[in-house]
C-alpha cells in the first residue's frame, strides 16, 4: 500500500500528513501528529476514549478513517483550552473532582463539550444519556455529571463551584 499526502484541519491548524489510506484518524492524530490526548482503550468504538469533534459533532476517531476527515474541521482535547486558559468545562472537571486516573477524561470532555454546545443547560438525565458512550472505570460518573451540569453555570449550593470564576 502506498502512502498518500492529505491535509487535515486540526484545532484550527492545517496539517499536512503522509498516511496509509487505511489509517484511522486516531492513529494519525497519535502517531503522526503527536496529539496523544485522544486515547485508545477498547479499539472498537465502545468506550469513547478516542472521541474527537468532526465539524462540531463527536465521533469515534478509532472507527473513523483519516481520509474521512479531509475537508472537515477536527477538534481534539488539545484544542479545548485557549492556550493555557482552561475552558469552563475543563475547569469544572478540575474543580468538581471529575478526574481520577484521567485516561477517559479527554473523550469524556469531547462528548460533554458537544452536548453543551447543543444544549447549554442540560438536565441530569440528558447528561447521563449523552455520556453513556464514554466508559469511566474510576469515578462512577457522579462527579463528571455534576461537572458538566455546573460548567459555566456555577451553583450556590455546590461546595466545589467557584462562582464568578
Amino acid at each position, binding site marked *: 500500500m502506498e502512502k498518500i499526502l492529505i491535509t487535515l484541519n486540526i484545532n484550527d491548524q492545517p496539517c499536512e500528513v503522509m498516511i496509509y489510506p487505511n489509517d484511522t484518524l486516531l492513529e494519525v492524530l497519535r502517531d503522526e501528529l503527536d496529539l496523544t490526548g485522544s*486515547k485508545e*482503550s477498547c479499539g472498537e468504538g465502545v468506550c469513547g476514549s478516542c472521541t474527537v469533534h468532526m465539524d462540531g459533532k463527536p465521533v469515534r476517531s478509532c472507527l473513523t478513517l483519516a481520509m474521512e476527515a479531509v475537508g472537515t474541521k477536527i477538534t481534539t482535547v488539545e484544542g479545548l483550552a485557549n492556550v493555557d486558559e482552561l475552558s469552563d468545562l475543563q475547569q469544572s*472537571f478540575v*474543580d468538581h*473532582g471529575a478526574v*481520577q486516573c484521567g485516561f477517559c477524561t479527554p473523550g469524556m*470532555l469531547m462528548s460533554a463539550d458537544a452536548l453543551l454546545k447543543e444544549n447549554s443547560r442540560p438536565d441530569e438525565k440528558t447528561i447521563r444519556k449523552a455520556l453513556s458512550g464514554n466508559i469511566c*472505570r474510576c469515578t*462512577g460518573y457522579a462527579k463528571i455529571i455534576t461537572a458538566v451540569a455546573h460548567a459555566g453555570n456555577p451553583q450556590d449550593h455546590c461546595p466545589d463551584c467557584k462562582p464568578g470564576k
Partner: protein
Amino acid sequence: MSDYTIVGKRMPRVDSRAKVMGKAKFTADLKLPGMLVGKIKRSPYAHARILNIDTSKALALAGVKAIVTGKDTEGVKWGVFAYTRDQQFIQTQKARYIGDEVAAVAAVDEETALEALDLIEVTYEELSPVFDPMEAMTSQTELIHEDFPNNINIHVNIDTGHVDENFKKSYYIREDTFVAPEESYFQAEPYAVVARFDHEDCLEVWCPNGGPHMKSKPLSNSFKIPLHKVKIRKIAIGGAFGGRSEICPADYICALLAKKTQKPVKIEFTREENTIGTRQGHAMITTHKTGVDEKGQVLARETTCYMDGGAYSSTGPIATSVPFLSMEQAYRMGSVRYNGYRIYTNKPIRGMIRTHGRGFACGLDTQLDMIAEHLGIDPVEMRLRNSRQPGEYTSTKSYVDSCAMDETIHKAVERSGFKEKWGKLPPFHGIGIGTNSVQTGFPMGIRGGSQAFIKFNEDGEATVMSGVVDNGQGNENMLVQIAAEELGLLPEDIHLVSADTETTSSDPGSYSQVSTFVGGHAVKIAAQNCREKLFKVAAKVLKVIPDQLRAENRLIFVKDDPERSIPIKKVVRISLLNFTSVNAEGGYWPRVDMKREWVKNPYGQMCEAFSFGTTIVEVKVDPDTGQVEVLEVTAAQDVGYAINPLVLEGQFEGSIAMGGQGGMLTEYHEWKDGRCINPSMLDYKLPLACDMPPKINNIIVESIDPKGPYGAKEAAMSIAMSAAQGYSAAVSNAIGVYMDSFPLTPDKILAAIKAKKTETIHHKEHDDYEKNQS
C-alpha cells in the same frame, strides 16, 4: 475542630489540569528515538507441551529486529513469594492457558511485528486441560505444575480452636454455599510498557504499576543487574484496581527485546490481551457454616472456599486469605475455622482485585440475613450484634484500634431511611445492607515502610520525593496536601517527584491500601523534620523558642503574636547563608507482626489500622425481565480522617460502580474450552453513566486512627466490598429469595422468581391437602 489549613479541605487534585488538557502522558503516549514495536506470541492451547519453536521465517522478514523465546530467558521465573515462583516470563516447557507467553518479536512497526508473530512456528503436543477447580483437584490428567499434587496451589488454614464445641452450644446453625465467577479490572488504560537500556547500561522502564519498587526488584533479579541500574520511571497510570501490582511478563519481555536490539521497545496490549494476559479476579465457591446463640450472636463459623487460581500462583497466598480476613475484621466470629484452597486450572492468572471475594463476602452477609430472619431480628440489629468493636482482637490476633463500624451502620441506616422501609416496601422493591472491613497494609517485610525526602529551594518552595505511586486514586494530591500543611506552604509551592525508583526510596506501593497511612506518613514526618530546621533559624530571628512558632501561608509566625512573622523564603535564605541545611528526610514503618506469614503462620498483627464500611442499597426489580433498577445507594465508611473529602467522595462513588453496580449486576466472564469469550468492552458489561443510581449518599466517618497521619487510614475499598453485599441483599429482599449465585443477572433473578412461585404453589397445595385431610 482541627486547625489544619490544607488537609481536611476539599481541594481539586494537582494532577487534574494536565489530564483535562490531554497533556498527561501515559505509557502508550511515549515516543523515543528509534523505538521499536514489540508484540507477544501467545499459546492457542490451554495446556500443551512446547516441542519446538522455529523462528527462522520470522527472522527473515524485513523489518524484524529481534525475536525472543524461552531460551533467551535462562528460565527465570516469577512469583510473589519464594515458594510461589512458578511463572516463567516466556514458557520453555509448556503453555498452561490460552494466552500464555511463548515468544515475542521487536520490529520496525506494528504490522511487521504482527506478521512476524504469524511466521513463528511453534510445535505443540496438546495435553488434557482442566478448567473447573473442583475437577482439577481429582483429575487424573497431567498436573498443571508437577510439584503441586491435586493441582492445589495454596492451602490456607486458620483455626482458632473450640469450633466444634461452639457449634454444639449453638442455638441455630446454617450451612450455605455461594458461587461467583471470574471478573476483570477493565482499567481504562490497556497495559503498555516501554523499555530501554541507556548509555550506562541502566534499564529504564515506563509502565502502569501499583508500586515502582515492586517492579524494579524482580527486573533486577531477572536481569542480574543491581537495583540502582533499574529505573522505573514515573508515568500517568490509567487505573489499577489491584491489577497492576505484580510484574507483568511483558515488562521483562520488553526489556529483553530492548537489550537484544539495543533500542527502545514499546509493547501495547490490545484490550483482549489486557483481559487475558494480565490478571483477573478469582472465581470462588464458598461454604459458610454459622452457629449463633438465641440473640443471633455468632458462636462458631466454619468457612471453606475453593478459588479458581488459573495457571500460576500470582498473589495466591494473599488472595486466598484476604476475603476471609476482611470478614473476620468486620464481624466478631466466635470460634472459627477457615480452609481456603487456591487451585490451578488452565485459565488466565488470577490476582488481587478491588472487590476481593465478592461471592465470599456476599455469601457471609446473605447468611447473616437468613439467620436474622429465622430469629426474627432485622438485618441492622443482626449486624450491630456481631459488628467489630474498637479495642478488640480479630480471630487471627490483630488488635483493632480505631473502629467506627457501628457509626457507619447507624449513619447509613438513618440517611437511607432503612428502618422506615424495611419490610414495608411494595413487591419487587427491596432494600439491603452490607458491611465490610479492609486492611490498611499487609506485612511486607523490608518493603513495608516508606521513606521521603524534602528539599527547600532558595525561592522558598519545596520539592518532595516519595516512592508513592498514583494509579488514579489521588495519591499525588494527598502527598502535596500533607507536605503543604506541614511546611506552611501552599499546594502550588510543592513540586512532587514520585514513583521513580532512581530518585525515591523504597515504598510498599499502593496495592495494600497503604499509600496514605505509610507513604503519606513518611512525607508528613519528613516535612515536620524540615519545618523543625526552619523553626530553629526563625526562632533566633523572632527571638522566641521554636515551640512558640507556627508555619502557615508561606510565613513562620509567633502563635500568640501572629504579627511577628518572617517569610519562609527568607528563613531558607538565612539558613543557607548560615551554612545550615534545609533538607530533611522522614520514614514510616508500620508496626506489624513480622512473623505473620500468609500460609505458615496466619496469626499476629496484620496491619496497624482497619477501615470499616457500610453500604445500603434500594432497588426495584422488574419481575418480567429480571432487570434491576437501583434507586439509591448510601455509603458510609470509617476512613479515620478525610484528608480531602472531594477526592474521597469520588473514590466512594467509583467503588459503588465497580463493587456494586458492575460487580453485582453485570460483570463476569464466560468461557468456552478455556477461552474467555467476553474479553472485550463490547461483551463485558461495564456500568455506564445511564446505569448508575440517580442518588448516591456519601457519608464520611472519622474515627481518627491514633497511628494514621492526621488519623487517616484505608479509604473506599470497604465501600467497594460492602456495596457488593448491599446490592445482593437489596435484590434478595426485593424478590424474596436469598440469592446464592453472583452476579445477579436477569436470568438468575427470573429463575429465582419462578422457583419461588412454584414453591409457593407447592406450599399452597400442601396446605390445602393438609386442610382437606383434617
